[in-house]
């Protein structure tokens, strides 16, 4: 870690002004759980840091507006999301996802904004947010803009952020609220790792049911970009009865995994389909053929 300048932004305004003046010089830092290991591995090209910790006061919020949309500030930590009563009531599947991030020590510092800006294909909160059509709000001295998270994430480590912007908040429209207490809606996030805790995702699936009883699906760690798995959604939402072979076919259309030190592409594809099936069966979808016996 070779940092030559370290600036603590004391307000959003100060942060934005700094970026407006020197748009490409600063590496932004919030919780530090992704940035510090990258510094240690010499993967950061900037030598100046813009620390956003003090923006917690302005950007740490978790609220619901009168239309029922959820607003989560970029500086809300994973653990704050896990502990939050509003999210528990209206979108608990996001808590299920954030709960799987690293460890409690990581969750106490890592922010949802950081998870998005790190743009790892394996980011744990991302599939749930994308399945729910989450939007991001970006701000700069020039004002605000808003776009779908799915369009914002461009690939591993790449987002559509402009060099003078910071991520301000995530918005979840009401129609995609799902929670355990509300029996009409259902949602599940399943993560497969090499062990049961403190592990980076090998494959993950988010399946949400919306107010029209249609499912929305997104996969994690299975493609360079996390996107809505429309082929899977179309199939499940239109088929009178599901069968495993067809499900596997549409899942394969929606994922493009790599082989790496954690797992092979072939295993990831199989597991993606199997995790989808597992969730659908738990959501009481019926499968035509021998359900639950073997996942090949």
């Amino acid at each position, binding site marked *: 870690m070779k940092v030559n300048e370290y600036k603590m932004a004391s307000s959003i305004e100060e942060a934005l002004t700094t970026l407006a003046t020197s748009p490409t010089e600063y590496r932004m830092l919030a919780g530090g759980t992704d940035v510090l290991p990258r510094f240690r591995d010499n993967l950061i090209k900037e030598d100046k840091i813009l620390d956003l910790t003090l923006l917690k006061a302005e950007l740490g919020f978790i609220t619901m507006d009168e239309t029922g949309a959820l607003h989560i500030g970029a500086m809300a930590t994973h653990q704050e999301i896990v502990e939050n009563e509003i999210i528990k009531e209206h979108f608990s599947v996001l808590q299920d996802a954030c709960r799987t991030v690293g460890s409690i020590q990581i969750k106490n510092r890592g922010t949802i904004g950081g998870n998005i800006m790190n743009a790892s294909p394996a980011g744990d909160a991302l599939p749930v947010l994308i399945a729910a059509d989450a939007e991001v709000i970006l701000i700069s001295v020039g004002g605000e803009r808003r776009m779908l998270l799915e369009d914002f994430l461009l690939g591993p480590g790449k987002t559509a952020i402009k060099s003078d912007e910071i991520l301000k908040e995530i918005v979840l429209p009401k129609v995609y609220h799902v929670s355990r207490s509300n029996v009409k809606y259902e949602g599940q996030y399943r993560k497969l790792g*090499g*062990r049961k805790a403190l592990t980076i995702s090998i494959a993950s699936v988010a399946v949400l049911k919306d107010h029209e009883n249609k499912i929305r699906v997104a996969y994690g760690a299975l493609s360079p970009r996390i996107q809505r798995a429309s082929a899977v959604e179309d199939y499940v939402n239109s088929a009178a009865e599901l069968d495993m072979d067809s499900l596997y076919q549409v899942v394969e259309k929606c994922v493009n995994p790599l082989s790496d030190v954690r797992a*092979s592409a*072939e*295993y990831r594809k199989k*597991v993606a389909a199997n*995790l989808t099936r597992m969730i659908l*069966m738990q959501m009481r979808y019926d499968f035509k053929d021998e359900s*639950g*016996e073997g996942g090949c």
Partner: protein
Amino acid sequence: MAENKWIGKKITRYDGREKATGALKYMADLEFPDALAGKILRSPYAHALVKGVEIAEAEGMLGVVAVLTAKDVPGLNGFGIEGPDQPVLCGERVRFIGDPVAVVFAEDLESAENAVEKIKVDYEILPAILTPEAALEEGAIKIHEEGNILRHHKSSNGDVEAAFKEAAVVVENTYTTPYEEHAYIETEGGFGLPLEDGGVELYYPAQYCFRDRMQLSAVLALPQEKIRINSNPLGGAFGGKDDMLLQPILALGAIKTGRPVKIHLSREESFMASTKRLPFKLTMKTAADKNGKFLAHKVFGISEAGPFAGISGAVFNYAFENAFCVYKFPNTDLEGICVFTNNSVTGAFRGFGNNQMTFGTESQVDQIAEALGMDPIKIRRLNCVKGGERYSHGHKVNESVIGIDKCLETMENSDMWKQREDFKSQTVEPWIKRGVGIAISQHGGGLGNLLDDTATAQIEVLSSGIINVKVSNEEMGQGSLTTFWLIAAETLGVAPEMIEISSGQTHNAPDSGPATASRSTFIAGNAIIKTAEALKDELKVLGKELWGTDEININSQGIYCVTCKTNFISWTEISAALSKKGIDSVSRTVAMPETDIKIDLGLHFIHTYVSQIVDLEVNTLTGEVTLIQTEIFPEAGRVINRLGYEGQSEGGSVMSMGYTIMENFKIKDGKAMTRNLQTYLVPTAADIPEIKVTPVELVEKEGPFGAKGLGEPASIPITPAITNAIYDAAGIRIKDLPASPERVLMELCK
């Protein structure tokens, strides 16, 4: 059994408070004034000649005090447990990715790191041997002058081929086990300090200070008396701190710079440079008659020593010593080869080859049982060596060999075994399959009879009245300090608070041998007892001199005359009285009991036995294996330190659970692809089953208070118990470790 005051009880450990408060300083926590920071330049190539090393630019950099290379080694530029084939700093050839070529000592770590980057090494890349098969090919490059074969064992008894022909069942399989990384939480690190007499002192976590001192004497061309080593506490070792790693470089740095020097490895550097468990490929063919009696066992195995002999030859030997587990095989055929490669350095790792071999053997036994429709516990009881019988290598073993049958019997009568069908029926989701598996193991304590295996203990009564017990065996977490403490207290008849243990050093403790091979409790414990008895003899002599009688009682206050109770002297007075007579301390040496025959593999006499049940679930959609509960039945003689005994059983089980289902050290072209704890996964608290420890307590009459070793034995049977349980659950036979989710799912889909 006699009722003891301290032995067998739950006692707060000797070094507990300082560990619980964070007060204990491990080696890299220490501070010495004017210390320099060291950084090593390591080879990026698996195999290459070193044509030249340019250090001029590095030497001139800010803060740099010394840049050392091979030419700076004053004595022998080599070390190694079996022979000095591992260079301190490579001047001619590098043999693995990580082999040290130079070291920079500077005022701070950043300066040292900057300087390392400016050292220019001219390498001529050589073909690298990256598989054991490549090491044996005609015309393969020789990693060492003598060739690429470190060990080749061949032995047989009877006629296996004839036995295979008449057998009712023959099972043949090939099993592979990967490298394993110790992943102790404390990475290697410590200090070298120059001494005024031209000698050197080390503060460095290691498992045998006396052997390190001997090797350093040759490297530094210094007499041993000028080398002082402090080797404990250790933050975990598991065999990984047995071979030397940084000691020669730290000693060299201290001598050459005249200042204290410090190196503390990052996790990545520890992964790269330190030893790993030997990987094995074992082809086994096993036969039995229609009643389940074993007829024959044939094993062909190949393993890697990595680039240096180290202790790998001994690991290989020990694997083959354990080829028959504790079964009677009338016909046997063993062949094994251990070769040099340019992959990771291999060495000692808890279990020492036994885990790998027993994984294969216990999988074979289960398959034979299945083929014959026999109960897996009954077939094992049928075939285990009984009291008075010899092992299948032909040698005599301890009478407590009946322990294995007691373990099996206890397991058979346990609730966990009796309720196994109940356990299996309790799944809800159709893709979760439950299974139950068992396995046994046996493990010889001590170094085996090819080596001298002795331990010396020493006791000094200090003028403060404290009784100072000295053994060099290092405390690495296994609880040896506590065990020695309780043994000394019990033998002398004083409260443990009266006893202070000196260990982990060459200057104030006698040579008790290495803290390895599950020997510390047994042999150092025996040495302490013998020495304590010798002290008691001296106290009796004192009694005679003072009061005319040798009938004395000993307690925490001192000694007093039995018949004339008012006659009493305190420990402080005893210290003075003994010193006056020229007896500064009492010391005795004991040897490990040996068996009666010798073969090239080395053989053990005292064995610990363990059986284990595992109840688990297999998720047939993801391949995940989840252990729900396990019960371990160790027969390790008497329990001395109850919390320690359970701790070893639980810790050994979880460590080897990791080896079996998640630890996957991947190496490609000689380079570790799993380079740290992010990609090399060890178990977390979320991964563990409920663990029940059921000691099967027999008295081993040769052992201190009837005890035997447990550190390694507790880590062995869980591996085949897990893979046997996976078969029970999902009908797939895992023969290649680890049984990761990917491997399990792929096997299910075949």
